[in-house]
């Protein structure tokens, strides 16, 4: 039966078919439903590998130790043993090849992160020895007197 009433419907079906033809070319092959089902697992599988490929920047103390063992062992005898080298020295990334030299953060702000006195009764912050940054030699860097690698007060420069 030839009926003009169906003409718009054919146009619609044509468009749908067009989308279906384009789709396989546009959508990556590994896109689909994965482990967590359609609600939480509808994605391109390859993306998991993409994320795994991100480079590691913070290598950790053990990595530093391979070359700077003397430094690491001496700091390990001080209260600052708990601090990662890279927290102040910056991420090692591929050091020593890249970057050959790390940018060390020697600012006052870096020390104040822990040592600005905040007497917060239900937090361990209260137990850290601290100063009032507005009163304790406000104009000079902490490292002028204190040695972060030997933070005991006997170690004052």
């Amino acid at each position, binding site marked *: 039966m030839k009926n003009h009433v169906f003409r718009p419907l054919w146009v*619609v079906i044509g468009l749908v078919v067009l989308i279906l033809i384009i789709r396989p070319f546009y959508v990556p092959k590994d896109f689909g439903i994965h*482990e967590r*089902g359609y609600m939480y697992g509808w994605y391109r599988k390859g993306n998991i590998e993409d994320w795994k490929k991100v480079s590691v920047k913070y290598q950790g103390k053990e990595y530093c130790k391979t070359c700077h063992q003397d430094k690491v062992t001496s700091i390990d005898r001080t209260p600052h043993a708990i601090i990662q080298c890279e927290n102040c020295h910056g991420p090692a990334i591929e050091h020593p090849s890249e970057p050959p030299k790390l940018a060390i953060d020697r600012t006052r702000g870096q020390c104040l992160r822990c040592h600005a006195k905040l007497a*917060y009764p239900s937090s361990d912050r209260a137990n850290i020895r601290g100063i009032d940054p507005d009163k304790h030699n406000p104009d000079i860097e902490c490292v002028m007197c204190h040695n972060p690698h030997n933070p005991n007060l006997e170690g004052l420069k």
Partner: protein
Amino acid sequence: MISRRDFLKNTAKVVAGVSIPLAAIEILSPARVHAIKADSSIRWAFLVDTYKCVGCGFCVKACKNENEIPYDANVTRTWVERYVLTKDGKLFADSPKGARDGFISTKIDLGMGNFQDVKKEDIKKAFFVPKLCNQCDNPPCVQVCPVGATYQAPDGVVMVDRTWCIGCGYCIMACPYGVRFFHPKYHTAEKCNFCYHRITKGLKTACVQACPFGARQIGNIKDPNDPIAKIITTERVGILKSEFGTKPQVFYIGLDEEVR
């Protein structure tokens, strides 16, 4: 003259025409969906001890560097909040720059350039709460993604596909914890993914490694010998905003009613 029956036929064709593409995009196959819902032997979980956190912000600094979030952009994958409760029942809380530079002053940032100094004598209790993506078991952010650009990996980590995200922001709106934002460079939704490139290599996340006080821990909750899993399963831990039914996988020691 066209009869009603022809119109019904017409309608049936429309329905058929719509269902063909639906079938073609492989979403109407419950059997298949069921079959691939395999179990993974890993389920990453996070433990935060708020007593141990001193608000130094080394975690935030490390996170930003590790995950290449522009350092000066005012967004961050993880952050630390400060809560100060006074004796007269007031709550002061802030997280200046997400605590990237730590908390180095007693002054609370009230926004719009205002600060409030709370005196030591007035404080009833005060503490720090690190925040990061809860990698929910029922992630509302994934549910609302219109294109499948964000998803839950088999090990429970919720990630974003930067090549597929259209940047509608619906996931940002749907997250009850405010962990999502637009990446200033890629302009796609961005979030904490437990440093996926690190945990899959056997390393700790950047924030866990950077924390000098052990306030942050990560482990595999499906491994009975995992020390973190042991704490989570045998000790009293809390989660954030349980009322949303999101089943967060970041657990807290020392949560307070005032923590948002």
